[in-house]
């Protein structure tokens, strides 16, 4: 009975100790953070020529982005003023990019031209037939008479 009691006490102590031990992951984190802090500190003390080189590299990258964005905003301004320029801008690149739309636009223009020509042609024909009727020896009513056509065919 006493032995059992001792075992229980020991078990309790072990549990307590285990509870106080920091888990591995926390210790790893602790060591890693400590090392990272020291490395960060070290990284702040570069040789002047290294710092200068990094600064030059950074400026080159930032200048590149500045130029790119300036170019982009100029393109947008042009596009805002004229959509035709945007469409055919960049040495026809946009035209290439919108190949389907460009083809559709071309077909639409051709169809429009065709109908316009047709329309003008039919107007001319109407004018010609009006002139013929007025200049003819017969009165215009004669052509509207159904019996007149039959009479011409029989003669």
């Amino acid at each position: 009975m006493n032995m059992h009691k001792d075992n229980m006490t020991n078990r309790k102590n072990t549990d307590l100790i285990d509870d106080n031990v920091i888990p591995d992951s926390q210790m790893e984190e602790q060591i890693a953070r400590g090392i990272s802090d020291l490395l960060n500190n070290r990284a702040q003390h570069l040789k002047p020529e290294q710092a200068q080189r990094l600064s030059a590299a950074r400026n080159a990258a930032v200048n590149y982005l500045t130029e790119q964005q300036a170019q982009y905003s100029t393109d947008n301004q042009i596009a805002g003023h004229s959509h035709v320029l945007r469409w055919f801008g960049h040495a026809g690149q946009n035209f290439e990019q919108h190949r389907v739309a460009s083809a559709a636009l071309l077909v639409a223009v051709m169809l429009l031209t065709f109908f316009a020509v047709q329309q003008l042609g039919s107007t001319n024909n109407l004018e010609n037939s009006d002139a013929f009727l007025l200049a003819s020896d017969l009165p215009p009513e004669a052509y509207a008479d159904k019996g007149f056509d039959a009479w011409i065919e029989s003669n």
Partner: protein
Amino acid sequence: MATPKELSDFLIAIERRAFKQTAYAVRDDHAALDIVQDAMMKLAEKYGERPATEFPMLFQRILQNTMRDFWRRQKVRNLWTTLLSSFGGNDADSEERDPLETIDVEDDSDEPSAQLARSQTIQLIENALQKLPARQREAFVLRYWEEMDVAETAKIMGCSDGSVKTHCSRAVHALALELKKQGLDKLGLSNAVFDKK
């Protein structure tokens, strides 16, 4: 879209760390500066239109890829050097050669100013970090130094979350062991921490 100022601020914040971590990986300060410069330019050229919040991840990925490109080029160069030297005669030192040995390691220990500036503790850590296998070092740097989470680190390294955890754990254990070998408990960490390893 990020503004040039946002890009500038981001680069100022990370450039020194990026240089140091590249230098640990390639063991050559000049090459490290070239690599960081390339990575900065690539970020501006290819991802300048992305929001600034995406920069840390993109930059790290570009940096890791640029380092890999460097290693590939170095490998090819070393292959040619080995081939050419094998035609050059039977020198005693022309036998098996470790590619890492052919890379010049800058040793600035002769400079008194550098000696003064350098803390012995940090030097030991740097050496220990350089000794780590590449994947473990990459995981440690991204996870703890760049303070990225496991998922982000995994994405950059192109592996699973579990692999990142394993690499990180092994890296920390290896570093702790190495530091303990040097009799170093100057990190403010108790001996119990090292004894646990």
